[in-house]
């Protein structure tokens, strides 16, 4: 048996899912899309039920990839039952999706979540009346505590077809529906549903129409309704509004703001809200560096004092090349673990908490105005924040944006100008360590300016129009640990499965190249660029080349080259130029791989090569400017 969970965003759907399935969920892409579907299994009365968590959407049309996946899954995979989760504090809005589910004529159960919270707000919902009006079973649940979840499962399993509510449109619209139904080819859903989708200009359904001209004539012939798509949507909202009014009682008279609104008064304040956001993030980074450093030391300690010396001495009698390869593979593992758990993991936990409390959506609102200057809107801040952890999952997360254009701009900025934790290590560990705070500040300033400049250029040259922010700001809620961990894991997944193995392979390759002295042959050919243009010691091409594999190797290599005190090896200006160049070209091969996966070869190659050119060009200019200034 297969049960699908449907609902709008922020209704507690994933909570419900986690309660039913535990944490053993499988995430897979819906075929042909970038949308991820969560699948899990629930044990019920000695049988195993497959549970699918559909993406949270406000409608089942074609406005976003998420909507299309939810819709097509319901039509094509035909789950046995759908559980529609509704947020009682916004019953009317939620019923819009419910009414669209009704159009599909698949068996479903309505689960009312946040029932208590709504009651506190003075909204009481008459469950029985709602059941009667919709013609489907309605169950009160509490996704946080798990109350009612099994009852809804029980109802869902036992569900037999009932007489569903059907929206009757205006007579003229109904006549048009009747006529259009005759123009349909074989459809995978009911004819009426397909026709309504056609009326709403759903691009997934227009191909089912035999004669497009006839369709246009019918649509034009409908009197008094110049915009049928709007008419259908309006009618559905109207019905939702009637049902909501009939089934709920709202006690008014309370002008007092809810706690959530009180918090919002402060955070979304146009004049100082952004400062609160900046302060929160600074505090977060402070905590991150403090605890992250602590964990990192522990991990390094284990590797440096326990594993590596033993391994080295154990392998010594064998082949020296083999020793070099294996030892470096282990060092790669160390780099992965030392960064993964403390920095990336902890950071992503923080971000998930901020997202689940409702803080992050407010950030998208506050930052929106500034993001428009680079052709993006507020939502793009979320992948960018993830990029401060690791560029790889960040590039994947650009999928949350609506158009390919937005995704590409964000991904390019992520690759070039938003330093991930490995690049932050270079900024702090090399520039900051040898030159002081001013250099950290200056590098960040240069990267930020570049991001703005390139954002503006990309905005101009990339085809397509900029889209705008539409983002629900859910009530502030206490985050659920299970959900936070689940979300963190989803984001860490790319890091663990792709980045860490690559770090091990990268380490091994590094060992091999080192043992065979392979890299040294490139030192002289690159001399004109490195020494002539960037004014650096010619051997520094080696850490740069390793940096193409992964940025952690850059630090390791420059230390091998220049010794433990780099100030004896390079001048201050050289150290600065080196750090700046090292952080501005492509983050690592894995990020390039991600660009290929998400955008294709052509884009990935163009982005990678231009980012190398930009880094070199910039390095030479900055070196000369600093030279003149000192």
């Amino acid at each position: 048996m297969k049960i699908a969970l449907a609902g709008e965003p922020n209704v507690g759907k994933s909570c419900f899912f986690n309660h039913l399935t535990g944490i053993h969920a499988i995430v897979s892409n819906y075929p042909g899309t970038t949308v991820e579907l969560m699948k899990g299994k629930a044990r019920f009365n000695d049988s195993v039920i497959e549970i699918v968590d559909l993406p949270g959407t406000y409608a089942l049309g074609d406005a976003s990839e998420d909507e299309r996946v939810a819709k097509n899954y319901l039509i094509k995979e035909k789950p046995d039952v759908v559980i529609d989760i509704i947020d009682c504090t916004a019953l009317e809005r939620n019923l819009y999706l419910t009414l669209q589910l009704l159009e599909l004529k698949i068996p479903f159960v309505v689960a009312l979540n946040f029932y208590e919270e709504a009651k506190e707000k003075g909204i009481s919902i008459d469950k029985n009346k709602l059941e009667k009006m919709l013609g489907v079973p309605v169950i009160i649940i509490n996704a946080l505590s798990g109350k009612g979840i099994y009852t809804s499962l029980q109802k869902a399993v036992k569900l037999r077809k009932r007489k569903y509510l059907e929206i009757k449109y205006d007579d003229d619209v109904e006549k048009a529906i009747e006529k259009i139904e005759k123009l349909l080819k074989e459809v995978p859903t009911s004819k009426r549903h397909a026709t309504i989708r056609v009326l709403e200009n759903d691009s997934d359904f227009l191909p089912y129409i035999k004669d497009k001209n006839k369709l246009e004539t019918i649509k034009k012939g409908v009197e008094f309704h110049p915009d049928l798509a709007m008419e259908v949507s309006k009618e559905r909202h109207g019905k939702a509004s009637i049902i909501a009014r009939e089934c709920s009682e709202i006690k008014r008279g309370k002008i007092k703001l809810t706690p959530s609104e009180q918090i919002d008064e402060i955070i979304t304040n146009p004049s100082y809200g952004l400062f609160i956001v900046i302060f929160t993030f600074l505090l977060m980074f402070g905590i991150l560096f403090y605890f992250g450093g602590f964990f990192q030391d522990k991990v390094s300690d284990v590797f440096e004092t326990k594993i590596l010396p033993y391994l080295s001495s154990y392998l010594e009698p064998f082949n020296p090349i083999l020793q070099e390869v294996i030892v470096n593979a282990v060092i790669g593992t160390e780099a992965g673990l030392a960064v993964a758990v403390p920095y990336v993991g902890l950071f992503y936990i923080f971000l998930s908490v901020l997202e689940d409390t409702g803080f992050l959506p407010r950030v998208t609102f506050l930052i929106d105005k500034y993001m428009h200057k680079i052709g993006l809107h507020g939502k793009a801040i979320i992948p960018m924040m993830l990029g401060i952890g690791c560029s790889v999952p960040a590039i994947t997360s650009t999928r949350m944006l609506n158009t390919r254009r937005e995704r590409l701009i964000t991904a390019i900025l992520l690759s070039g100008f938003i330093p991930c934790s490995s690049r932050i290590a270079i900024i702090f560990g090399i520039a900051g360590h040898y030159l002081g705070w001013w250099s950290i500040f200056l590098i960040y300033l240069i990267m930020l300016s570049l991001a703005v400049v390139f954002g503006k250029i990309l905005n101009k040259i990339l085809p397509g129009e900029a889209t705008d922010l539409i983002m629900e700001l859910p009530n502030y809620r206490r985050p659920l640990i299970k959900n936070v961990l689940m979300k963190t894991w989803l984001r860490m997944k790319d890091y663990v499965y792709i980045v860490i193995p690559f770090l091990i392979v990268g380490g091994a390759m590094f060992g091999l190249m080192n043992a065979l002295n392979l890299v040294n042959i490139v030192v002289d050919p690159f001399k004109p660029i490195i020494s002539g243009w960037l004014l650096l010691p010619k051997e520094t091409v080696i850490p740069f080349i390793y940096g193409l594999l992964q940025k952690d190797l850059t630090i390791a290599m420059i230390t091998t080259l220049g010794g433990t005190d780099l100030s004896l090896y390079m001048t201050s200006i050289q150290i600065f130029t080196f750090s700046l160049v090292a952080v501005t070209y492509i983050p690592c091969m894995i990020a390039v791989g991600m660009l290929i996966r998400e955008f294709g070869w052509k884009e990935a190659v163009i982005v990678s090569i231009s980012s190398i050119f930009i880094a070199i060009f910039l390095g030479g200019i900055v070196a000369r400017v600093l030279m003149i200034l000192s």
Partner: protein
Amino acid sequence: MKKTTEDYLKIIQSISDKEFVKTTDIAKKAHVTPGSVSQFLKKLAKKKLVTYEPYKGVKLTKYGKRYAEKIKEKHEVSEEFLEKFLKVKEAHPEAEELEHVVSKDVFSKMKEFISLKEKAVKLNELKESESGEVLFMQIPNHKTLARINAIGIVPGERVKVIKKIKNGPIIVKVKNTQIGIGKEIANNVMVIKK
């Protein structure tokens, strides 16, 4: 008959709505002979729309004046409605016909529609904590339109502006949900201030 009556009233009014108007002047404007004019004027006098005095011509009565004004208004409203909202290019001759046949009900609805549209402001123009009722939207991208429709912003819906960033997005409350909306979209949602 009704049309002719109304056309005569218009002609008389256009020459003078206070003084007596000569039959010959009316005949010139109506492109008919003075004889048939005076024939018809007598009928108008019977209906108490004009006062008719031989050799002086006719003068609109109070009732006749009101009638003529109503016709004029019907013409203006019809023409404006056709031109502005139905984008009819040759609206004047159409209005010339409509003024005689448009029903009281349709006429008052057209008037209401025009005044509503004139009162409409951009959602962006509302101040914080002001509310409005959505009238219509001018969003060409059907996906964007579908998204804001689905989230609850449809004609007839009441929205309240909660927060507003200068030259930036706004937060609105609609159907008990807070939504952040970018400047561009908010600029294209027209509302009636409540």
